């Protein structure tokens, strides 16, 4: 690979240049996104590296804040000049170092690169300054790909912008949403760039392939994490001795600790998911707050949540330990007792073998009791982790909005196959911690089910 393909990101102040770059490079710390115009005051470059080599080099530029003034300062196009020559001539003048210092930086960057992404906030009204801006950019002699940002906003004036761009011969356009990227937005952007830069097709194809692989790898890693968390939760089991089982106070303590353990595991899973998707999990991140402060799991043991999930799951599921037992709020979401343990065993005996059954019968005979999580809780956790995973997969790295808890989730009943795949964990309390080949096999099966959910 030779020199990286240089791409300038230009546009009017606040159109979302830095946001677009954050999303394209998945660097949430790049530049500084804010509502304040002209935040970027210098040209800053960032590389997109494939296998350690820079394939693309993006240049973030300051906004063209006064295109009207700039166009006037460029002066008329003389007959002996091409438009780029006029720009070069302007860059030699004093005005370009004083009044138009910031604009000159953009122009210099434009003359140096292979192509430019022209970011447009299409919520903006099409007024004179933007016509000047398009005219200046189109006259730099470089392939310019207009990127229509915020196309999904209700205020979007996409049609007017498209028409204006077409008037300046910018017919190839990409639609994008830096904050809420939609499926296919990024591939389309690169496809449009390929059309503009046929001689650099190889590197652009390579980039598109790399990004797709990365997306797939992140998706798979997320599913592995979720499967791991679900197996651990399903396996989680505390056996109470005869003394503990007969003392209400001791029992309550153990139940409390058990719940805390469940919540902590769920929280760890959320943090790992954020890590996999390269989202920070500091407390300052408002958007993710419900996921960070545990609010997403606050109602996990709420009888209502569980009754709802339980009813949806109940039919046809091999739930031995009845949801009905959860009527007792103190034990909501948990199954406790020899009877419950035995019931669960008979429900899952076919898949678990009789060794386990024997162990549980022995536990029951000895007056011991086993505490474990109900299926409904495990499935509610599954549902919410899947929501978060899906939300993070499509979330732009410039997004400031919340990842909603109520975002369209798969209905619990569709998670039925997961429930079956988690069952083997019920028979192996040791799966809550360590690895083993059988656990790995169960995890692979569970991942396959997760993948099938789409």
């Amino acid at each position, binding site marked *: 690979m030779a020199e990286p393909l240089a791409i300038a990101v230009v546009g009017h*102040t*606040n159109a979302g240049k830095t946001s677009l770059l954050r999303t394209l490079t998945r*660097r949430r*710390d790049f*530049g500084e996104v804010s*509502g*304040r*115009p*002209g935040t970027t*005051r*210098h*040209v*800053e*470059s*960032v*590389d997109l*590296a494939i*296998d*350690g*080599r820079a394939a693309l080099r993006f240049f973030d530029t300051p*906004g063209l*804040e*006064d*295109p*009207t*003034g700039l*166009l*006037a300062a460029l002066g008329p196009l003389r007959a002996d000049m091409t438009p780029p020559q006029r720009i070069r001539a302007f860059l030699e003048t004093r005005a370009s*170092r*004083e*009044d138009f*210092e*910031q604009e000159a*930086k953009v122009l*210099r*960057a434009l003359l140096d690169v292979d192509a430019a992404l022209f970011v447009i*906030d299409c919520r*903006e*009204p099409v*007024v*004179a*300054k933007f016509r000047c801006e398009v005219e200046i950019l189109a006259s730099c002699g470089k392939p310019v790909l207009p990127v229509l940002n915020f196309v999904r906003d209700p205020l979007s004036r996409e049609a007017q912008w498209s028409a204006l761009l077409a008037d300046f011969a910018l017919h190839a356009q990409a639609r994008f949403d830096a904050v809420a990227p939609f499926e296919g937005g990024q591939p389309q952007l690169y496809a449009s760039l390929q059309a503009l830069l046929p001689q650099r097709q190889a590197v652009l*194809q*390579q980039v598109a*392939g*790399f990004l797709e692989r990365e997306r797939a*790898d992140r998706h*798979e*890693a*997320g599913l*592995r*994490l979720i499967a791991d968390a679900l197996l651990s939760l399903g396996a989680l089991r505390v056996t109470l001795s005869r003394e503990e089982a007969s003392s209400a106070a001791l029992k309550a303590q153990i139940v409390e600790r058990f719940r805390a353990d469940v919540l902590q595991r769920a929280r760890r899973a959320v943090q*790992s998911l954020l*890590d*996999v*998707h*390269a989202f920070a999990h500091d407390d300052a991140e408002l958007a993710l707050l419900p996921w960070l402060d545990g609010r997403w799991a606050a109602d996990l043991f709420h009888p209502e949540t569980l009754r709802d999930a339980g009813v949806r799951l109940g039919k046809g599921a091999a739930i031995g330990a009845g949801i009905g037992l959860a009527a007792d709020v103190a034990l909501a979401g948990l199954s406790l007792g020899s009877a419950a343990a035995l019931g669960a065993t008979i429900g899952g005996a076919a898949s678990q073998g009789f060794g386990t059954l024997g162990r549980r019968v022995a536990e029951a005979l000895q007056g011991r009791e086993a505490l474990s999580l109900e299926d409904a809780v495990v499935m509610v956790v599954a549902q919410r982790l899947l929501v978060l995973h899906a939300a993070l997969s499509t979330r732009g790295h410039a997004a400031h909005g919340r990842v909603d808890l109520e975002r369209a989730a798969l209905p619990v009943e569709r998670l039925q196959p997961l429930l079956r795949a988690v069952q083997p964990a019920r028979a192996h309390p040791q799966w809550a911690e360590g*690895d083993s*080949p059988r656990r790995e*096999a169960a995890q692979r099966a569970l991942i396959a089910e997760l993948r099938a959910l789409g």
Partner: protein
Amino acid sequence: MPRHAPVFSLQDLLLTEAVKDLESATPLQDERAMRSAVAASPQREARIVQRALTLAADTGLDADAAWLRRALPSLGLAAVAAGVLLAALVTMSLLGDGRRINALAALALLVLPNLAGIAAWALFAALPGHGGAGVLGHAAAWLGRRGPWQRRSARVAPAALRLLDASRLAPWLLGGLNHLLWAVAYLLAALGLAAVLSLSEYRLGFETTILSPQALHETARAIAWLPAQLGLPARVPDAAPTAGASHALGWWLISGTLVYGALPRLLLLALCAGVARARSAALALDTQDPYYRTLINRFEALAPTRVIDAEHAVSQARRDAMAAPAGGSRLALVGFELPPEAELPPTLQADAAWSERIEGRGEERAALLQRLAAAPPARLLLVCHAMSTPDRGTGRFLDGTRPVPTALLLLPAGLASAALPRWRDWLDAAGRADVLVFAEADEARRWSGHG
């Protein structure tokens, strides 16, 4: 475009996996390791491995892994020793009592278990998944947790087993050991036979009571075909018991042991070694693993960005000297770069001495500034679109309106309050704190003296 994942040695990957296990409990302090990894390679997988190597050296994992590596050859030695023992047992059972040997039965005794063993191994190697190797691996893990070597192996053995399993190296390594054992056994058995038959006299023949001697004879000939092709002395005599026949059959037995016992095992040993070598030359890091994904993200966040065209001290825009305001007492209302559908507030329009809308073209601006300079109003209210401003164009126009007391009204009302703090920050930064900004038309009216 196919991607060639970078390849690492088994030793490096073992340490990387072992560090991963170590960090699954608590993440290690890794600033130094991260830095050295970034310095060592631009390539992400190589960085992860380099980071792990640094951490392994810090935590003593590398010593454990080196110990494991040294322990492995002793497994090979054990296989050889077992082979020697096996050979001794087989030869002894063949030559144990009496001086008469049924050559065909002896060869069958020697070779049939071998062929059965090979068939079993082939089945085992062809099995999809991890069945047999997993069981053996677990036996090894169980042993690793118990013996006196427990302290050293505890931190690296699980990683090693997982790695062998995931890379599908285990069946071939175990197969290699197995074939080594048997090849040694058969070579030694052949050698033992040769030694015993050289130094003592045995009578070899084909003995049968109910089978046809002719069939036995032909079977022996068929068996002799392959050794003969390989140039070994395996001639089957025509006639029955003579000293010469015993001599020939002795060689037949030794050749048979070599060709049907040692040879297939040697070939399979070579096959296993070849496959194991190929597989270990293709060992790559699993970039779909959540732990490695997280590390990749951390390394990417470290990639530097470069500032190309740094900001110089902001050049103070030269301000147009303007005539001091005359004693005019009236409000001028200017709609600046408004979208076509936006309307100037009617109440303000009624208050204003004059009002004008400009789209923002250069000549429009110049004309307006000229008008303001020629007959300065008492106050100027600039109506701007909240979403598109502030920007330098508006700022430059504001500079031009000095010294007329100027304020801004943002439209539309729904977006104005969000833009308000942005504008205030911007004006403060530009040294124009004297310019007031309003989101409400009524407030602007009060400022203009009409409210």
